[in-house]
């Protein structure tokens, strides 16, 4: 690759590394992360439908085209397979593409390129053609949107060899996980919980921040968001906030709930699951995707494998139903709500062998 782009990129790094804490929405945190990644690595490119001038329908790429030019940040024609197929080719030419598909449901037209090409090119080429593609997918439901705008594809992606999958639950995670994902040499599906885009939260910028991960290193693995002794709630994306809410309510009844943000949906942090459930001896996994063959089954089975002797009850799954994602008010019936999660906790707490 030409190093002219490298220089133009360097010229853009107009801000000093951030320190301290800022209150940002997830939209702002993601935008900032992209801004910094574009400034730091001239090989990065941000593109997709309406990502340029408009700044994305969720404004995640807002202002980036003005700052980095139409070469680095651009609109594509309306074709998701095209976007991902082009990403593969750009990666083969040495770029680090950060494409967006506009909504979860519109990742389906690109599945062939994702599964058969992007996930396999490193393998097929015997490591000579890595695929550092960071695919941003505004994901999950909860915003009363039209059909196909509330899907949860994590189980599909997590099943595909060659992909890594991650989902942030708050602005801090969004910033750090996106910066991390966009510097990896492997393809990462980055699932953004669109119902949380406008929620504000503290982002800690110190790169030595131990909140980035349990061990203070890079933001790999799961993260305990609230410690507890009686039961572990495992969630990701928008469901983490809901589980924290549930934990607060349960605490009023004297039930001490641990909340684990899984963060990485592939690879799954099996050690963190084991550590938590060995302590609490009960687990409830929560997700928006339909129950059957959802990622909750994998999480539950990983827990059962590692904690078979200590588990006091079978792992509960509180999930979306095996129905197409519904419209309007029915969303509230479909997405795991506080009541359903509390019922799940109750079941694992009251379970008696016999």
């Amino acid at each position, binding site marked *: 690759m030409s190093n002219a782009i490298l220089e133009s990129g360097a010229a853009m790094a107009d801000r000093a590394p951030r320190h301290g804490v800022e209150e940002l929405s997830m939209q702002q945190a993601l935008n900032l992360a992209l801004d910094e990644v574009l400034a730091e690595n001239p090989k990065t490119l941000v593109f997709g*439908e309406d990502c*340029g001038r*408009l*700044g994305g329908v969720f404004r995640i790429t807002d202002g980036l085209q003005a700052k980095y030019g139409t070469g680095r940040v651009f609109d594509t024609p*309306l*074709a998701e397979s*095209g976007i991902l197929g082009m990403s593969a080719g750009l990666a083969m030419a040495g770029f680090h593409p950060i494409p967006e598909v506009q909504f979860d449901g519109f990742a389906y037209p690109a599945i062939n390129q994702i599964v058969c090409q992007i996930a396999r090119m490193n393998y097929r080429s015997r490591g000579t053609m890595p695929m550092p593609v960071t695919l941003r997918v505004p994901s999950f439901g909860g915003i009363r949107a039209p*059909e196909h705008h509330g899907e949860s594809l994590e189980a599909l992606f997590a099943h595909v060899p060659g992909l890594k999958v991650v989902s942030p639950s708050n602005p801090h995670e969004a910033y750090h996980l996106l910066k991390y994902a966009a510097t990896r040499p492997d393809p990462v599906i980055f699932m953004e919980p669109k119902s949380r885009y406008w929620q504000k939260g503290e982002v800690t910028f110190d790169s030595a921040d131990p909140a980035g991960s349990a061990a203070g290193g890079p933001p790999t693995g799961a993260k305990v968001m609230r410690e507890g002794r009686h039961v572990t709630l495992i969630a990701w994306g928008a469901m983490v906030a809901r589980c924290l809410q549930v934990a607060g309510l349960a605490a009023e009844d004297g039930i001490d709930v641990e909340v684990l943000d899984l963060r990485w949906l592939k690879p799954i942090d099996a050690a963190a699951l084991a550590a938590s459930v060995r302590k609490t001896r009960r687990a409830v996994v929560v997700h928006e995707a339909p129950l059957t063959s959802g990622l909750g089954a994998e999480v539950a089975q990983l827990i059962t494998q590692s904690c078979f002797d200590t588990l006091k009850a079978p792992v509960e799954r509180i999930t979306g*139903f095996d129905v197409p994602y519904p419209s309007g008010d029915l969303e509230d*019936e479909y997405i795991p709500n506080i009541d359903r999660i509390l019922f799940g906790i109750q079941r694992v707490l009251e379970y008696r062998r016999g």
Partner: protein
Amino acid sequence: MDTMPSPATGSGAGQLPGPLSRQLSGAPAEPLTDDQLRELYSLMVAVRHLDTSAIAWQRQGLIPGYAPELGQEAAQVGSGYAVDTTRDFVFPTYREMGVARAMGVDMVAYMSTHKATWHGGLYNPLESRLAPIQAVVGGSVLHAVGWAHGQTLSGIAGTNTDGTAGVAMTYFGDGASSQGDVHEAMNFAAVMRAPVVFFVQNNGWAISVPTERQVAGGSVAARAAGYGMPALQIDGNDVVAVVEATRRAFAHARAGNGPVLIEAMTYRRGPHSTSDDPGRYRSLNDERDDAGEDPVERFRKRLLADGVADESFFAEALAAAKTEEEHIRAGIQALGPRPGMEMFDLVFQETTPALQAQAASWREESEHV
């Protein structure tokens, strides 16, 4: 490029360069009667009024969102008007309110999708001859090809030589033309000579992306020749041109000559949807320059000039549109949420034990009755 023989052809017709590999067959249809012209105007006014009202409904919180078709009334009403609902079948996108109205679809049932009552809408597609509202860009174009090929297959057996076989019309936009499915659909249809009318509303924009950065070569109609398929690029803001082109295309397809593509050149005068902010990607000046004359106003002037209608007729049409809108609004207001059990009951024709178990636990834990 086939030029439109109709005297009503607007300035947009006949623009496409280069010869067609195959011409549209059949003579031009009968000219529209004055009654029909007035009916078309009434429809356009009803659609315009409902469309602008729906934006207000959204602002007032009656509906969560809406995709206006402001500026596309001629393209939608004109093409929908040409449909024979006793035998044809139409595959819309999410923006074809005007088509639905022109086809006589129950508008409360249609607009219910914008109240987020049910994805796809509450109307019965089989009775309405209008497939459910489609949110995947380009998603239903292939369905039209399959449905149309079904007509051919039924005909093959020898019972449909009586001309009762229908034609499928599928709507899509300039943005959708980039989707692989649209290419596959055109190729399948042309290989199989399926009776399909591909009706493209080229409204200049796919959300924020203008046609010139979307459609290589600049014209969707120009793609047709590559499939050996005739195409008409027409002035989509001239309702009479649209009716006549659509009728010709239907006649061509119905006669067993295979698919036709119509590219109706129009302009999306409003935002992409009520959550869009066009100010971020085009200026008001651009809009003024590019939109051309308002298709409703243009038709009004023409009817007046031709002596087909007068001010009192226009006033009546507007009054009727208002009454209609009030009626629809009342219907939408009265619509409650769908019962949660429909989530489970409508997945399959034959339900499964797992789904029944989930429904039972939903009832137990969540039903707020």
